């Protein structure tokens, strides 16, 4: 009996100790994320896309700026990142893994992963893209316009968005900080949005 209580106490101690630094994110003091269930703002998307990325997103010839609602997707995973955020730097390989999983699980037609570089210019986004070989579309947001509209969130920050019948996106879920695993995050997106995998 005493051993059992010792184990319970140990578990509590460990969870409490790790909870103190569980959120791996550059936090923002005035963060006010768009609530789950709310309509997501139709952000203006700027920057430069790699060849082929525009087509996949339904942007003819990759012509920017465009808006979030103009993207060809039923579900969007929006990651708010910054080249300057050490947590986003460490998250980059996991983001690549997530992108590969989306393709591998036959979700790429309906579910798109995009990044928005909070306060990052085209050049700064490009530094991040090249450094980590990012294959999914990254948009710049030098003046923090999109960042402000998204609630001045810390980085990395994830929004899972589901398209409504009227074309707008609604927040299905959100997450501050590094994901535990790409597979886990994708499972969560599938569950929260109901997007179906290709059999």
């Amino acid at each position, binding site marked *: 009996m005493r051993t059992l209580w010792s184990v319970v106490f140990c578990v509590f*101690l460990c969870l409490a100790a*790790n909870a103190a*630094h569980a959120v*791996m*994110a550059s936090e923002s003091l005035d963060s006010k994320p768009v609530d789950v269930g709310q309509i997501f703002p139709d952000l203006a998307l700027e920057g430069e896309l790699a060849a082929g990325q525009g087509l996949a997103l339904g942007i003819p010839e990759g012509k920017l700026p465009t808006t979030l609602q103009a993207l060809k997707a039923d579900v969007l995973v929006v990651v708010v990142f*910054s080249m300057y*955020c050490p947590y986003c730097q460490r998250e980059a390989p996991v983001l690549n893994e997530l992108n590969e999983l989306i393709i591998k699980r036959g979700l790429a037609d309906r579910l798109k992963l995009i990044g928005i570089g909070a306060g990052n210019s085209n*050049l*700064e986004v490009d*530094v991040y893209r090249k450094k980590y070989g990012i294959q999914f579309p990254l948009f710049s947001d030098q003046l923090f316009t999109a960042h402000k509209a998204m609630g001045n969130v810390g980085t990395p920050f994830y929004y899972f968005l589901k398209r409504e019948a009227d074309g707008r996106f609604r927040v299905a879920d959100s997450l501050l900080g590094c994901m535990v695993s790409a597979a886990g995050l994708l499972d969560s997106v599938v569950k929260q949005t109901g997007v179906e995998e290709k059999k």
Partner: protein
Amino acid sequence: MIGRFFLITACLFLATAPAFAAEDPAFKDSIFKVATLKPTDSTLKVKVGDPMPEFDLPALDGSRVRLADFKGKKNLALSFIPAAWTPVCSGQWPGYNIAKELFEANDTALLGLSVDNVPTLFAWVKQMGGLWFPVASDFWPHGRLAQTLGILRSEGVAERALILVDKQGVIRFIDVHDINTRPDFAALVNAMQQLR
């Protein structure tokens, strides 16, 4: 019994710890919150085209960093930050830390500078996860280089400034930035590219 207790605790701690351990996750929790400050608080004493004043400062690895080390060899970008352990500064050099190739492509060395002393800078950079570029301390005589350049603020810290010096030791770019915001990296990169 006590041994078993510690063994179980250690195992569970590792099992429940965050997956990433390369950088100390306590880094963000160690950052001192700063109120919005006067954007700039000094008067520049140099301009583009002037020779860069000589300097000889201690670096974090115990060596000295001198302007003479770079003359005739590399362009030199100096990144002054106001203070270690503060928000904007702690989110500036990590960005430069993934841009090494850009500096190299433009034949430019990067030097980080602050008026903090060496031990403070050492601890800060270490907890940041390390940097590829050298960092030097302009602590003593306090902020002498910053003062010579005219970027020492009245509260005793340097401005957030970027200064680019060419291989002849001539200043080619100056950005004394709003201390509350991060400088646009593209402006520095453009200036480096113009030296090619």
